[in-house]
């Protein structure tokens, strides 16, 4: 995609909101996370570090806000009057929500982040100039900036650990923004294999690293266009519609029996990740 092409087809790359005029053709990757099943074990986060060549920055840089966890587990406490203050934590895995109308996309001065045909919010490291506007405009704070040239200056992968880096993912250099990609390297492989066989990607054929690592199967991932996919069925059952900023079920009296919700939906970001509310008390 040249810059000429970008300017000529501006509307293709700056999608304002999901519309019926420009529907997704074959794939719309989406996720649903059942918080009732999430134990906060952090396996998803670790898997993400391994899959996507994320540098473990260490305690000091972490405290400066230079962390690189594309997927983080957020902790919430609801009850103040507990015997032990730390008891009853609720966990929420938070990653890039792959918004349909992503606030990060509209503020990038160089078009380094834009929408793909599959409904992903892409980040192109080569084009990124490091303005960090996207991070400032992201309501989920799911974007991470490379403050250091981690592979060379900060010794995050001491030898022979550089051997474990994933060759399908770039090792990012200093000064670029990065974020969860829904493991686009796996999606590309699955799509290519499917295409050779003249079919669409089957449900369950491709897993994200976090989904694969989750011991309780809290994360499901798939194609929202395919009505038979697990994700599409979950979204359907929870009556969460991708292109709505207010879900019809929330207006109905019994609607709150359905657990599905999307975070900060009212900001009209149209996120692609649906969470299923936690019902049971946390064991921890």
């Amino acid at each position: 995609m040249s810059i000429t092409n970008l300017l000529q087809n501006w509307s293709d790359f700056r999608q304002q909101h999901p519309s019926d005029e420009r529907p997704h053709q074959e794939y719309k990757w989406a996720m649903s996370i059942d918080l009732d099943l999430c134990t906060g074990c952090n396996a998803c986060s670790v898997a993400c570090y391994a899959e996507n060549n994320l540098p473990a920055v260490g305690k000091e840089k972490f405290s400066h806000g230079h962390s690189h966890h594309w997927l983080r587990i957020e902790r919430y406490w609801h009850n103040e009057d507990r015997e032990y203050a730390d008891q009853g934590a609720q966990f929420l895995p938070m990653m890039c929500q792959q918004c349909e109308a992503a606030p990060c996309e509209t503020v990038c001065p160089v078009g380094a982040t834009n929408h793909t045909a599959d409904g992903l919010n892409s980040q192109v490291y080569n084009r990124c100039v490091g303005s960090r506007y996207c991070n400032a405009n992201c309501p989920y704070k799911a974007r991470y900036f490379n403050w250091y040239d981690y592979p060379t200056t900060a010794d995050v992968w001491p030898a022979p650990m550089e051997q474990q880096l994933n060759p399908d993912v770039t090792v990012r250099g200093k000064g670029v923004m990065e974020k969860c990609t829904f493991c686009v390297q796996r999606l590309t492989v699955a799509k290519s294999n499917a295409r050779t066989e003249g079919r669409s990607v089957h449900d369950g054929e491709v897993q994200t690293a976090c989904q694969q690592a989750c011991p309780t199967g809290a994360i499901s991932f798939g194609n929202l266009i395919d009505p038979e996919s697990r994700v599409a069925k979950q979204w359907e059952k929870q009556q969460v519609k991708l292109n709505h900023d207010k879900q019809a079920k929330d207006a109905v009296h019994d609607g709150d029996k359905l657990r599905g919700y999307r975070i900060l939906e009212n900001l009209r970001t149209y996120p692609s990740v649906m969470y299923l509310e936690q019902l049971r008390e946390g064991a921890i």
Partner: protein
Amino acid sequence: MYRFLRLSVLLVGLIAAVGSVAVHAAQPLTTADDLGPVVDQPIEFPHDRHAGDAAKGGMQINCMYCHTYARRSNVAGIPPLQKCIGCHRSIESVRETPRIKKLFEYWEAKKPVPWKKVHDLPDFVRFNHERHIQRFVFAQEKPVQEACGYCHGDVKTMTVARRQKPLSMGWCVSCHQKDHPVSATSTKTTHGPNDCWQCHK
């Protein structure tokens, strides 16, 4: 007064911006050949002898006889030494030539030939041979050497392969923007993917 000034400044800026875009758009995407560096290989492999036209003394071997992974993998693959020996142990006429002697030295030492990469894409690029071969060779039924030659140049006239095409993004895009028929018999055309993440990883 100031308002007019501001307006004129704005207009000048706008014209300049539009003009620069227009100038940029007028430049054709590069499709010109751009010779890569000469890569010294351990054995000076004669592509022309193996794949060249019969009239010029070539054997017209299909590219994918040796680069066998091209149709089913991201990478085309360099043939294992076994593949070279498989044919050459029964070709007595060239058995004593210097290059074949060297080849058998590697074979007897049980060492692979340390071929060097000629078409090396940057690490941030995801390129898939399979997709291109499936489309151009199997769907469109183009001759193999022509399809491979779009990116690899006229290898059948070279001895040691040398990069002939720029392999730059603009050059890739120049082809991806063209309409290509979906199959040999179909009149339907599509163009290549135009999505950053298709090629950038």
